[in-house]
Each structure stands twice: as C-alpha cells, then as structure tokens.
C-alpha cells in the first residue's frame, strides 16, 4: 500500500511540475485534470477535517463529559444552525451571508482590535526578550515606521534632502524582504523536491 502511495505522489508531482517548464500539449492534457482533481480534493479534505472537528473532537467531548464541554456545545449548535441555514438559503442569499458579515466579521475584527493592545504590551518587552544588537535595531525600526505610517512626517516630502533620506529608508525593508524571501524560496524548493523524490512521505505516516 505504501509503495502505491509513493508512486502516486511522485508521478502526479512530476507531471504537474514538468508542466511548468515544458509546454507540450500531451503534458497539458495530463496535467490539467490532475490540477482540477487536486483543487476538488483539497476542498473535500477541508470538509472531512471539519466533520472530524465536529464529530470526532467536540461531540466526543460531550460524551466524555470533558471539563470544556460548554465550549463544545456552543460550537456544535452554531455549526448546525449555519449548515441548515446555508443548505436551505444557498450561499448567494443575503440572509445567509449576514452570518458572515454580521457574526464572523464583528468577532474577528474585534479580535484584531484586541490584538492591537496585546501587540503593544508585547512590544514593550522587546528589549527584555532580545537583549542583543538585532533586538535593538528591531526596536528602533518599529518606532520609526510607526511614526512614518502615522503621516506626521508628511511635511518632509517638501524638503528634498529629507525626502531622499526617507525614500532611501523606504528601500531598506524592501531589500531585507527580498533577501528573506529568496532564502525562504530556497528552503521551500528543497522541501518540495524532497517530497517529489520520495524522501519525505507524510501521507504514509
């Protein structure tokens, strides 16, 4: 069984990968259904994981009288109500979309708002956590870009010298970001290749 899985993973991966570099029609014929199936299956995998979350984790907590049972009850009820409403009203209906815009958006936006204060509290201790050069530069950079974002330095755009300094300073995060993204690309490339040559096999457990 394990060998079959490895063969499927490597074959499907190579067909899709070669499609990026070679434009042959035959390859395209093979590649597009694989991509289409992958899109469909990743949606179904999300569905299966949600069913496991609802029935495998939270319903089991109710049966086992878990101390956090109340939390699970709220999740199960809200899931059931949303599912029933969605099936009857269909995702395009305004009423059903209110569940997202009037329930999910307020809660997540408020969470993001609460994060503002949490992040400020965490930022106070940057120099306690990272007592080195990097921590100190990070600390100064946060303060500088906060002031820059607030727009109070807008007056500098009228003074050429200051404008150039600011423009130069604007380039530093971009240069750093490129370096970091290039590094991440190399790591991501190596990880993907390991899966395609069969060294990493998370599907086989």
């Amino acid at each position: 069984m394990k060998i079959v899985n490895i063969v499927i993973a490597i074959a499907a991966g190579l067909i899709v990968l070669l499609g990026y570099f070679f434009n042959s029609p035959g390859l395209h014929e093979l590649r597009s259904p694989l991509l289409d199936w992958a899109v469909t299956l990743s949606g179904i995998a999300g569905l299966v994981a949600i069913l496991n979350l609802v029935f495998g984790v939270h319903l089991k907590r109710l049966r086992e009288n878990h101390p956090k049972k109340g939390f699970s009850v709220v999740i199960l009820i809200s899931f059931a109500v949303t599912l029933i409403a969605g099936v009857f009203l269909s995702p395009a209906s305004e009423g059903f979309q209110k569940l997202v815009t009037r329930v999910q958006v307020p809660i997540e936006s408020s969470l993001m708002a609460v994060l503002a204060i949490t992040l400020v509290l965490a930022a106070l201790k940057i120099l306690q956590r990272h007592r080195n050069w990097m921590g100190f530069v990070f600390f100064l950079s946060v303060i500088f870009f906060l002031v820059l974002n607030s727009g109070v330095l807008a007056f500098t755009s009228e003074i050429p010298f200051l404008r150039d300094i600011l423009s130069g300073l604007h380039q530093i995060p971009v240069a750093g970001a490129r370096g970091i993204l290039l590094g991440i690309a190399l790591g991501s490339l190596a990880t993907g290749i390991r899966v395609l040559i069969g060294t990493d096999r998370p599907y086989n457990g």
Partner: protein
Amino acid sequence: MADIRCLICNRVNDSSAEHCWYCNTILPKPTGPLTQKEREKLANLKKKIAGAPNPDPEPHGDAPQKTPPESPAEEEVPDWLARIRRLKQAEDQGPTSGKPDWIEEEQPDWLAKLSQPAAEDTPNPHDAANRVAESKKPALDESLRIRNLPRETDEEQEFITNLLKPTPPIGEEDSANSSNGQLEPLQEDRVDDQSGQEFPAPEGPNDEDFLDVEDLLSDKENVRSDQKTVQESEQVLSVPTGKDLPFPLFVDNLPDWLSTEETETKQPQDTGDNEDDFAGEIPERKIEKGRLPAWLQSLRPGVTGSIEKISSETAQVREDDGVLAGIAGTLPGTDLSGRVLKTGDFTQELRVSAAQQKNAELFQSLLQPTREPKAVSADQNTAAPSEKLLRLFITILILLAVITPILAPGISAIIPVLFPTEVVNTLGTVQTLPTEKPVLVSAHFEAGLAGELNWASQPVLKHLVTRGVPLALTSTNVVGFAILQDMVTQAISGDPAYAKDKKVMDLGYLPGGAIGMGALVNDPLGTLPFTTDLQPVREHPSLGSLNSLSDFGALIILTDNPEFARTWVEQVDGGEADLPLLAVVSAQAAPLLHPYFASGQINGYVAGMSGALYYEMLTMRAGSATARFSAYQLSLLLVAVLIFAGGVVSLILAAPRPAKKKEAG
C-alpha cells in the same frame, strides 16, 4: 558397599546411583575413609550414646527395642548415617511403636494400615498376610508413599481426601505426637485462606526421620484441627536444630532466618509427667519467641480471640442415641454442641508500621494518576498584579486615544500635502478604464481585517461605481466573497443610478489558490462557469463574451496577505495577460508590495487608512478615512511613544549597576 537408601522414598538404590531411581532425589554420597576430625566426633558421639538413657522409651508392652546390628562399615560411617541406621532399627522393631496400645487393639485393620507409615518398602517376609491385604489396597498407598509424584488428577485428589479424613478419637492426637520424641507429620487439612477449599496438606514423608520444617511452620500457622489441644496458638513448636536434623543437607537450604532459629541443641528431656503438655515427650521449656522478619511479622494474622479451650473428654462413651445406639465399643461420637470451633480469624488487615505507612504514601503520591484536564482559562493569570495594572493602564490609554477624536471631531490631524505616487497612479488608472469592459475584483482577506480593508477600498469602489464600470467579484478564500459583496453593496448605496443586478456579477469562491488563479488567467469561463446562485456566466450580458483575462478592463486585488498579491502578479505575468493590475491592501502588506510597484509589475496600490485618505483627498469625496484619520494618527503616535518608553525602561532595568558593585567591592 551396601546399597544406598533414598532419603525421600526410602527405596534402595544402587551405590553408584546419584539420583534415586524412583523419585529422582539426590542420594547421599557413599562416604570415603573418615577424616581425623570425623573419627573424634564419632568417638564423642559414642561416649554420649553410651552414657545417655535410651531416647526411645519402650512402648508400653511392646517388644524391646533392638539396637540395629552395627555393620562393619559403621566405624567409618559418618554419625548422621549411623543415627539414621539406629533410628531405622528402632522403627523396625515395633511398627506400631509410638502408638498407644488402645489404638491398635480396637482399630480395625484397614485403619491401622492406613495410619501405618508407608515406610515399609523392604518386604517383611513374616507378614505375608499383610502383604496380601496390601496388594488388595488400591494403588492409593503407592501414591501416598511417593511424595514427589506429579500431582494427581482432581478425581484422585478427591478420592484421597475422603480416604485421608480419619476421625481419630479424642486424645489420640496427643499420643500421636508423643512417645518417640519426634513429631509425626500431622494429618491436617490446610484451609486455603482464600478459597476456603480444603485439600490435603502436602504429605510429609511418613518417614518420621525426616521433618519438613516448612510443614512444621505451616502447621503452626494454618493448623485447624478438630481435636488439637493448644494452649496458645503462638507457642512455637520446637524447631529441631540443624544438628538434630539427620540431614544437614537441608539445613543449608533453609532460609537464614529459619536456620538460625534454634542453635543450641537441647537434649530432649523426658518429662513424662505432664500428660497434658502438648507433644508429650517434647521437653517443656520456655521456647524463645521466633524472631520473624518484619514483613512476615506484619503479615501474621492478628489474633482476634484466643481459640477457646476445647476440653477433651477422655471417658469412654457408650452411644445411647443415634444410629449406633446401644452398640458398645463404637467410636464415641463427638459432641459438637459444646464445642465452639472458632477458627483463627484471618483478618486481612495488615499491621503496618509508621515507616511503612510513610513509604506507601510516598509511592501513592508518585504514582498519582495524570491530572484530569482542569478547565483552565486561557488567561491563567500567572502574571503579577503589577503586570495586570500595566496592562489596564495601557488599555485605557489606547482606548482614550482612539475614542476621544471620534467623540470630539474638532481635534485635527497633520494632513499630508503631497501624495504618494502609488496612490496617484491608482487614481489615474481607474480614471482611464473603459466603462464597457468589466473589472475583475479578486479578494483574499480574513474577516479580521475586513474593517480596515473596507475603509481602504470604499474610495476606489465608489470611484468605479460613479464611472459606471461593471464589476465581477470573486475571492480565493471562502469568507472573502461574502464580505466583498457587502462592501460593493455599501459602495453602490450612494449611487442609485448604478443597477446592481446588471452591473455586478458575483462569481463566488475560486478554489485552489494559485492553481485556481492560473486556471482563471487562461480560461475564466471554464474555471468559474456558474455564479453563486448557479446561473451560467456565459448568459450574462456583459460577461458572456469573455475568453481570457485580457478581456477584463483591469484586475483589482483586495488582500491582507502580500503572498497573494505576489501570486497574482506571477500568474498575470506568466499568462502574458495584458491588463492593468491594481491592489488595495492592508497596512501590514504595504512594505512587501512596494517592490512590485517599484518594478512596474503593479500599476498602483492603496495601502490601509492613509492610502484611503490620500485617495479621498484626490477624489475630493470625504469618507470614513477622512473622518477617522485624527484618531488613527493620535493612536499610532501614542503607541510609538509607549513602545519607546517601554524600551527605555527595559534598558534601565537591564543596565548593570556599576555604582552598587563598587560599594559592595
């Protein structure tokens, strides 16, 4: 050399044999010439034997005890073998020696034979009649004699049990233990404490020469006998010392605590006087209490009540009622009514010393089952009170900085005069879009940043609506397209001339992330064939003629994740689609999107609230951004100051204190 007799089953084996042929027991080695030391010992022993009275008193009226003829090899025979031979001869002289006469006279033959020790291996030619009787006896006796036979089957065991349940008349018990100074292996039934089943104790060999100390001990422990006269259950039987035992061989096997039990050899004194003493011939002496190991001592059942003294009647009783009424000479029925049989109450209670109790508790605490998961709040407050105060103080400060400008709109902010090029380019691109070509708006943001993106995108969407440009909405994450539809509805609300159902097409969720985007670039209608209410897109008036992405007027990306902006850039570049690319992003994505604008891959972008403010100022249409910019600016500056103060305090706290060190030094 004479053959070697097996000590266990008393059978004669060939001298060369090491193990008994019958019962596989190790045979005592034939002795070589005596060493000097052994000769002296033998001599001392002889003096003793010559001086001592005859240890085996003449049984009443029985044939005189013959001393076994000394065989020539005796001088060299070690004392233990010599003693065995002597005892053997004593036994040969009187098979029923040691048994009170009255048992023999009245006892029917079958009972006499049963209680006869099965030692008689060597056929006694004189007793032919007995031999015939014995041959009729079931093979049972054989199994009795051979001790180490493999266990009988259950039926045989039961058969043996029934047979072996003699009911010796009262008093017989005493004499059984008496006379020859050796304890006969008691026929007792050991009660298995747990199951309450009765099964015969492992038969000691009937050869009185051998005393199995374990049995003795177990006798002492678990004795339950109907007629036993015990003064005190704790009286310890005299455990013959290693010296008395004929076979030192076994002494060595004894556990230390037993073998050191009785060291000095006590000459059995003939008391003879106190009939009632237990074990008659065993001299009455104060027996030192056995020093048992702590674990055994604690395991010993607490004696909850002394076994009542059972008085025994020794008078002859003629049965006057019951089945045997009127017949003389019957075995007296035991009068059960008077007897109270109370077994030693085997309490399960362990007597545990304080130290043991402490150890047990220690183990208990160590093996405590894993803690049940307690419902612990996510904010398990391990923070100190000062931390809470600081948290409260900063929360209040920031809320004040946010709410005050909202409640008092008079507070003005520093409004920038020049506008960033990315915003200006975005305005220019939207201004020049053809009104008949639809604009594809693709969203990928979480509900958490919907508020900020709503404020940032409203000016752009209102601008498109006022120009009457048709919109096609899609999103690459599930939540995105519901929020996007709400934003467009809000943007249209200010312009009644814009017909939403004609101008806006909701293509719904585009699954597959980068794959979906790639597919959309190459074949929009094939990738998104239906609207969210399952209407075919091909039949839509303005979208029906789409073949590729280039047929769209522009692509506007709404995202909080710079990765997605980059993925769209790569797909559009890769697909060689020729259409303007604009982005409305959150403030957190701005620093990472700027390089794509700088390199011309994106025509322009609006980032966060400040971007929206610039766009509103350029279109001279005040919106939420203009209204709330002062709160935005004030709170950002306050946060910057707070972080700076926090950093300075951290540096001060962390700074080494040279001054103090000097004083201390």
